[in-house]
């Protein structure tokens, strides 16, 4: 377990003009540049200047929507439209050097083979800074892809129905299979598979390439990957979770779970549940970070921050609501809260800036230095990979220790 003097991990979630629906109307916003590379490069560069562990990039194969079920809301007063998150991350990768890059993909709508090599490639082009935020998917995606029937309609009043609960359970099970395939493919080339042995004319040692032979309820994938094992071995897998079923997925499959407590007691209860699921998944000895998501509005003057939130809310039909706790205050106040929740077992935070770049800069120039002054956040990057920042060791390929058995299996298959 974390001790109360352990350093905190800080990440920022990037999305559009920020997480407040009226963010794009702020004077500092660049709403005409949301689809240009310079906008994203500036934000990620700022995060790196603030020594953050990583940034995430939100995404979905559907337009943003304010509705629970993700169906189009036909709104014209909020940011709509997004670029592919993996490609944004890849575009900024060569121009940054330390900060982790964690794009989002939707599991039910995509091929794990494609996702695996995409994240592996990001790991190559970023020099070992790739992560992945896996999400199940958005309801609106199914008619866009056309390959599976849409799920049952989701409404606030039917979430507890057996039909909807069964659908949710199945969706998360399928997502767990998707993550399993992606991870196996990352391991399917051992690190030393490429031998370039001129004497024998062999470029690779095929005994160090592995079929993953995944056969699940929804799909099967043979492997190996076409992309060699990425620099980190296993890029960092992350998932947002709000309830038991997703906690279970994260505890089985992720390195970081983002959770959404609204106070320290909730944080303690959620951490306890996640740790139980982690034990149950047989991963008790492994590092599983529990990050709290917080939507933040920050100003050196705490009252100014609260006034700004009110001013932004006045532009909406109703005040901002979020799955994550909304904190409006000063960086010093936020630092107090982060340390308080850390004592409840939270190991890091993914902060959702209400307005970009204002609240990002308040994090990088206000909050991060404040935590550094208190001895709880790095004063400089001392590692170059995302796993390094997070204290995650570089794992050996799961197939590396089973060479003899696997070799004979492949040979048997060849006969």
């Amino acid at each position, binding site marked *: 377990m974390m001790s109360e003097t352990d350093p905190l991990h800080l990440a920022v979630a990037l999305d559009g003009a920020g997480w407040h629906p009226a963010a794009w109307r702020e004077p500092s916003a660049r709403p005409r540049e949301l689809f240009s*590379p310079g906008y994203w490069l500036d934000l990620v560069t700022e995060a790196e200047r603030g020594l953050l562990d990583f940034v995430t990039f939100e995404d979905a194969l559907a337009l943003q929507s304010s509705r629970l079920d993700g169906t189009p809301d036909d709104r014209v007063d909020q940011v709509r439209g997004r670029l592919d998150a993996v*490609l944004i991350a890849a*575009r900024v990768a060569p121009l940054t050097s330390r900060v982790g890059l964690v794009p989002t993909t939707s599991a039910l709508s995509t091929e794990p083979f494609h996702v695996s090599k995409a994240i592996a490639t990001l790991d190559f082009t970023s020099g070992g800074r790739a992560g992945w935020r896996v999400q199940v998917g958005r309801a609106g995606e199914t008619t866009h892809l056309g390959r599976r029937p849409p799920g049952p309609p989701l409404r606030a009043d039917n979430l507890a129905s057996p039909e909807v609960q069964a659908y949710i359970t199945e969706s998360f099970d399928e997502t767990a299979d998707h993550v399993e395939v992606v991870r196996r493919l990352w391991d399917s080339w051992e690190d030393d598979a490429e031998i370039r042995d001129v004497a024998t*004319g062999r*470029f690779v040692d*095929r005994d160090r390439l592995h079929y993953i032979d995944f056969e699940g309820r929804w799909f099967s994938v043979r492997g190996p990957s076409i992309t*060699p094992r990425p620099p980190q071995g296993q890029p960092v897998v992350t998932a947002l979770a709000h309830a038991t079923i997703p906690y279970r997925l994260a505890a089985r499959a992720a390195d970081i779970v983002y959770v959404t407590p609204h106070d320290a007691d909730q944080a303690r209860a959620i951490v306890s549940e996640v740790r139980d699921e982690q034990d149950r998944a047989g991963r008790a000895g492994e590092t599983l970070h529990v990050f709290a998501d917080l939507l933040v509005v920050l100003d050196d003057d705490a009252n100014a921050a609260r006034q700004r939130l009110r001013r932004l809310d006045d532009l909406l039909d109703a005040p901002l609501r979020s799955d994550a706790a909304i904190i409006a205050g000063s960086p010093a106040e936020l630092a107090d809260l982060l340390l308080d929740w850390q004592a409840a077992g939270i190991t890091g935070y993914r902060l959702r800036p209400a307005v970009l770049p204002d609240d990002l800069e308040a994090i990088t120039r206000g909050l991060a230095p404040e935590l550094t002054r208190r001895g709880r956040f790095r004063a400089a990057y001392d590692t170059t990979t995302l796993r390094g920042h997070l204290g995650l060791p570089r794992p050996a390929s799961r197939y590396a220790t089973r060479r003899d058995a696997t070799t004979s299996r492949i040979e048997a298959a060849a006969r």
Partner: protein
Amino acid sequence: MSRPRKRIILGHYVAGVNHSTVWSHPDAGSQIDFASFRHAAQAAERGKFDFFFLAEGLILRERLGQIFDQDVVGRPDTLPVLASIAAVTEHLGLVGTLNATFNEPYELARQLASLDHLSGGRAGWNVVTSFDPFTGQNFRRGGFLHRDDRYVRAEEFVALARALWDSWPADALAVDTEQGRFLRDAGAGAFRHLGRQFDVAGHFTVPRSPQGRPVVLQAGVSPQGRDFAAATADAIFSPFHELGPAQEYYRDIQARVVRAGRPAGSVKLLPGGAFILGDSAADAEERAREVARTQVSGRTAQILLEAVWNRDLSGYDPDGPLPDVDPDVTGPPVIQGRARNPQDPFETVREWRALAAEHRYSLRELAIRVFAHTEFVGTPTQVADRLDHFVQNDGSDGFILGSHLTPGGIDEFVDKVVPLLQERGSLRAEYTGTTLRDNLGIPLPADLHDGHAHDGHAHDGIAAEPAR
């Protein structure tokens, strides 16, 4: 000739893998590290190339159930590496080979439109299809496509991708911060499509990209493929390197382009090819022979021929005659995962036997001739002359050139041949535009330029059945 000199279009492909890439040479670098891609792309941009080109392979090749170990293997995912290259180049087009069988239009169109935004309008797509159930084993959908349905799917796929690219009008973003209006109209991105391959509807998430439509490249050799490419492509991979057949192909494609209602010259023809330079013609020939022998070892020669014979040829002496047996068309495949196995192996073997008899080729020499032929061999002046002559006489509009060496093989071409082409005015001295379409000289038709042409049927989608 009295007409103005044509400017040669140049693409640079990094093969990176397979037998054509020499890995035993001391200068052979990594096929996977980003530094290699950065090097090759920046060299091409220094040489004022039009675009950078990546091929694709979605499964590792196998021989008798064992993964190839004699060739370079291991490649990056195409789109992310192109997005990263966009960060370290300014003008170079970024063309990826992406499979229409193992992707879905919504996702792929979105990725290409995203790449177009992230590169300031430099995205291109080389459309390929696959009916190979072997490759399908890596995908949840499996190998579902019948061979005859490949063009049906590709045609519908491209049409749907373009409908998605057109689905946001150019002025869709109002971005009125005073009035609080981000979109001009909630219909931005709306689409609906019902066809034989796809039944999809909803909203596309990417606003109109800088090029409007990323550039589409295709291959097209069969009559069906030629019509399809002439009607839909922006550029076509030509398979012809000899001037006579190339000119015939060029005339045929341009006639089909006009018949398809498009302006002559609006589709660019680009053969792929490799080059080897030398200080003298003899020196270049000698280097080419050395490279070919390195590319095709005796073992590799057997494996290359096994793909056609569909037999284990490891018992045949590479320095001896061609196998005297017929191809086995009934047995399970010996070689899996190669892009092209011949449709009629008997015919191919007949041709090869004739070729071997004519030149007294051994098994390995035949394999070298067929699989390790370097198209452009000579001094820098000879190669420049040959490329220029070919283009000025309508053998093509340019070339997609690669080297047997990754990543530095292109440097020599950029340093020695490019200045010669520039001197004679056949290659740009500086980039004049910002997009891949600017580089290629293929502007989007005016009626498509602002997206309004499609406003009327943005909600109705494209034709339910592709034109047949």
